[in-house]
């Protein structure tokens, strides 16, 4: 195998890791604050992709511009989901919480199938094939943009969480519901905000990958599975852990595709999950 092939896979993996980090950050934000593991998170990505696709198809809107529409739209969607589906089961047992989001995922996936059919759709943008060639390695610009966009959003989120009062309140609720109430924070509002933000980040991830990724009703499954692996590796609820873990997962997937075959990338990712469960059950950031 040539070095350039290896480097190519490595770079593809790193660039994809940005997107995985964005999806996993949203997942971890919802879990950290609301304490619900959102099995429908992949469908939020899928919705972001479809919104972007249709904005392009109907009005010729550029995918990056339509982020300005996709993100607020997904935010509102997340708020509604929290208000009407998650709020009633906040204190319910695991079974109710898990299967509520599983049910939501099944509904969203099949509403998409019903409305948009199972067709694979793609957005054609003029810069879709633009690339940098560095030696034997090609960097597709849409992938680079997606990576940079994801980093930018993750950075903005971190600033929001650490520097603003609302962000601090959000973290306070994540740390201790009762104490935050004593401090005058209304946790129910923070829940709405957390699920809204999580959905908006997932939608943004969807929008960012549309220039180089097919859109179809079940596209979310891959993302939610990878995001789960990322959050288990990086300890659920920790943003830095999610970033490091998505780097590992993104690179592992892309090297897995290179060495084991194009259909086994995910198997390698799950292999890492299994290995980590056996050797480091509390995650990369967790203390043993």
């Amino acid at each position, binding site marked *: 195998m040539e070095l350039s092939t290896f480097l190519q896979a490595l770079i593809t993996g790193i660039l994809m890791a940005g997107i995985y980090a964005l999806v996993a950050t949203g997942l971890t934000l919802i879990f950290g604050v609301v304490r619900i593991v959102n099995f429908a998170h992949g469908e939020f990505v899928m919705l972001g992709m479809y919104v972007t696709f249709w904005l392009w198809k109907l009005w010729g809107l550029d995918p990056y511009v339509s982020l300005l529409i996709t993100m607020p739209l997904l935010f509102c969607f997340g708020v509604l989901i929290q208000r009407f589906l998650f709020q009633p089961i906040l204190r319910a047992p695991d079974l109710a919480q898990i299967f*509520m989001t599983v049910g939501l995922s099944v509904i969203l996936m099949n509403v998409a199938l019903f409305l948009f059919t199972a067709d694979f759709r793609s957005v054609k943008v003029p810069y879709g094939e633009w690339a940098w060639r560095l030696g034997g390695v090609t960097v597709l610009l849409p992938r680079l943009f997606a990576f940079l966009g994801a980093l930018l959003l993750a950075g903005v989120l971190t600033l929001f969480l650490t520097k603003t009062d609302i962000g601090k309140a959000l973290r306070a609720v994540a740390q201790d519901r009762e104490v935050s109430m004593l401090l005058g924070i209304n946790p129910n509002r923070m829940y709405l905000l957390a699920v809204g933000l999580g959905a908006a980040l997932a939608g943004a991830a969807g929008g960012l990958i549309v220039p180089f990724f097919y859109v179809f009703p079940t596209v979310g499954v891959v993302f939610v599975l990878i995001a789960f692996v990322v959050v288990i590796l990086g300890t659920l609820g920790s943003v830095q852990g999610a970033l490091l873990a998505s780097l590992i997962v993104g690179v592992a997937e892309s090297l897995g595709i290179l060495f084991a075959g194009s259909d086994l990338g*995910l198997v390698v990712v799950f292999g890492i999950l299994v290995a980590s469960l056996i050797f480091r059950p509390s995650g990369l950031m967790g203390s043993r």
Partner: protein
Amino acid sequence: MPAQIEARSASFRLTPDRYVPALFLAFLLVLPYLLPNPFYVHIVVMMAIYVMLGGAWNILSGYAGQLSLGHAAFFGTGAYVSTLLVNHYGISPWITLWFGGAAALALSLPIGFICFRLQGPYFTIATIGLAEALRLLVLHFREITNGAQGLTVPFKGNAPWLLQFDSKMPYYYIALALAAGVLLVTWRMERSRLGHYLVAIGQNQDAAEALGIDSTRAKARALMLSAFLMGLGGVFYAQYTYVIDPDGAFGLGLSIQVALVAIVGGVGTILGPAIGAVILEFFIQSTQILLAGQYAGLELMVYGGLLVAVILWRPRGVYSWFERMYTRILSWLPSFGRTRA
């Protein structure tokens, strides 16, 4: 004990709680003859298969509260192992049935070893991941598994030794026996030491461990039982439909459907999955008939909607309704025979 039986038979009285179950059993036995055409028999067979699968899931996930969304892995393993043995070595499905179940049981050992390190949603995620990995591996190793096209059982006409029949009737009775078998196993387990351990673990694992229950061991045993029954279900399904493919047999969709059956009916109860299977299969088949499969995704939307509705308004499933209705019906019915003086 013998004294008790004697005392009862001396004053035998046909009370509703005795003859209603007997009549219901008789009804199940003649049911296929009452149905107007084979399509309805097919629906009833599917109901029985889901009773079996939901019941198998219920043993681990219902009683012990370990919510698996990877049970398709056991179903698929049973189906594939059996079908490969039948096709390559010409072994009778009546024998490969046990190999399929055993293979699923064997698979449950490493899966339990890995997944029982986790609790709650993490456990669920790990089960999804492992089943998904298995599905991708089955897709990948085409030489053995025939990839995405899946496997077919060659049709040999009416060959009872090959578990193949012209009519749907024999399938119905086999499915009924398997479903009844799963419910019987559940009943036995519920009354056993293991059953009590599982319920304790389901309520509070830490407390159960503090009482000296080896939770990992109990859960592993429940998983083995559950996986074995799931594997049997896979074998029967493969024989019944003649085709299996990786997405259908190993997919997340099947795992969700199986769990849904138990949840709608009522987890941690013997008859819950049976009620759930009948309700869900009824819903699915009627949406299919009414809409003639014109709209892709509609039936699964119904599934998802039912799941959300049940969790919002009936989180313990419909079992308790049925129980209440049943006791009320019993109270209306007359008793026959002599009463003891």
